[in-house]
């Protein structure tokens, strides 16, 4: 990465560029270890290191690090219990992994020159599809065909004609909303990370260009710089929030698989 290359300095899209670090082409398929894979691995290593070190002592009176890990544990456990109930806790490791995978990826992305793995739709889509696969798979495994009751919420006491009319409206809506879930789930995270980083880069780029242009540019630079700083704070919030949103929506969907009749 040539940091002095002007295209790197101002091009807001360049940060999403994927470059091969280690070539790997088994059977003609390009499975190279790229910068995306590298930063993803970094996130995984950091997560494991953080929780591994924090959990290793297991002392009754926790150190600060252990306390942080326990707070994270309690946070995700409460989230799962709150949305999916006690039975939802069997998915706790999955939700925990998901939350911290995304959280660390987003946070690493906030470091200048780092790559944001969650800014690629293929990653977020894969995660969303994984969630939906688990929801559908577990839903049918646990409830059998009753899982389809998810699309036909009970209407209580009602005349048969009214029921038919309502269901003919309700069922398509429910089906569409269900299949829109992986789309919204993946797009929300992807678009947030992408747009946020483009904005950051744009304002930071304006600050640099302003200085380079001179004249009125000296006015642009401080304003852009202030904006970039403010956006940085906002993006930190978004990075945490989007991980939380992804995890809690996963819990909500899992709750549907556990209790399909609303």
């Amino acid at each position, binding site marked *: 990465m040539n940091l002095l*290359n*002007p*295209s790197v*300095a*101002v*091009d807001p*899209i*360049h940060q*999403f*560029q*994927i470059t091969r670090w280690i070539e*790997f082409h088994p059977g003609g398929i*390009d*499975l*190279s*270890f*790229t910068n*995306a*894979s590298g930063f*993803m*691995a970094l*996130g*995984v290593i950091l*997560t*494991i290191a953080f*929780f*591994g070190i*924090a*959990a*290793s002592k*297991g*002392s*009754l009176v*926790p150190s600060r690090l*252990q306390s942080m890990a*326990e707070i994270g*544990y*309690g946070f995700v456990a409460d989230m799962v219990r709150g949305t999916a109930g006690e039975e939802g806790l069997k998915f*706790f*490791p*999955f939700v*925990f*992994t998901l939350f*911290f*995978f995304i959280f660390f990826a987003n946070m690493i992305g906030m470091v200048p020159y780092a790559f944001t793995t969650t*800014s*690629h*739709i*293929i*990653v977020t889509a*894969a*995660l969303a599809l994984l969630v939906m696969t688990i929801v559908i798979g577990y839903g049918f495994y646990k409830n059998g065909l009753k899982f389809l009751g998810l699309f036909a919420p009970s209407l209580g006491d009602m005349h048969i004609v009214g029921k038919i009319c309502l269901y003919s409206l309700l069922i398509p809506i429910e089906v569409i909303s269900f299949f829109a879930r992986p789309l919204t789930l993946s797009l929300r995270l*992807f678009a947030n990370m*992408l747009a946020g980083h483009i904005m950051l880069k744009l304002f930071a780029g*304006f600050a640099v*260009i302003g200085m*380079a*242009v001179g004249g*009125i540019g000296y006015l*642009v630079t401080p304003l852009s710089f202030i904006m970039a700083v403010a956006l940085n704070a906002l993006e930190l919030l978004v990075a945490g929030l989007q991980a939380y949103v992804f995890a809690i929506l996963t819990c909500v969907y899992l709750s549907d698989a556990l209790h399909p009749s609303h």
Partner: protein
Amino acid sequence: MLIALLAESAAHVSEHLPDDAPPPFPPFETWHMPSQLFWLAILFSILYLTLSRVILPKLSDTLEKRSDRIASDIDQAARLNDQALEAQQALELRLAQARNKARETSEKARQKMDVEMAAETARVDAEIEKKLDTADARIAGLRADAMKNVEQIAVDTADVILGRFGVSASKSELKKAVSAALE
């Protein structure tokens, strides 16, 4: 004008872009998708397995151990508190008993002393009474003696006085006269 300037500078910069400029939008490129999926699958699995097999059980163990410990500590504290309360009650009971006993003892002593004092007072009173009686008797005796002497003196005196007047009277008459006068 500002925008024009920025556009100009951007154009100036873009002149430096290499000819084989990358396609405009990397997230929608397809060549890296298999590799992304491949590494995501591997890394996510590693993270999931490590967390769910090793780290989370340890964390939950620690949390459980701590809540157990806190619960048992609270139990023990409650038990000790009960014991302390019991001990306090026993202490109070024994204090009350001791106080009662002390009151009884002092009461008994007081009663005994009262009885002794009454007996002593009675004895002393009786003694005094006896002494008074003897004294009274003695006084009465002395007085009778004195009176007898007075009578004798009166008789003698009367006899002498009568003798001066040249009158003689018998002793018995004199005595009768004197005792009549004395009464």
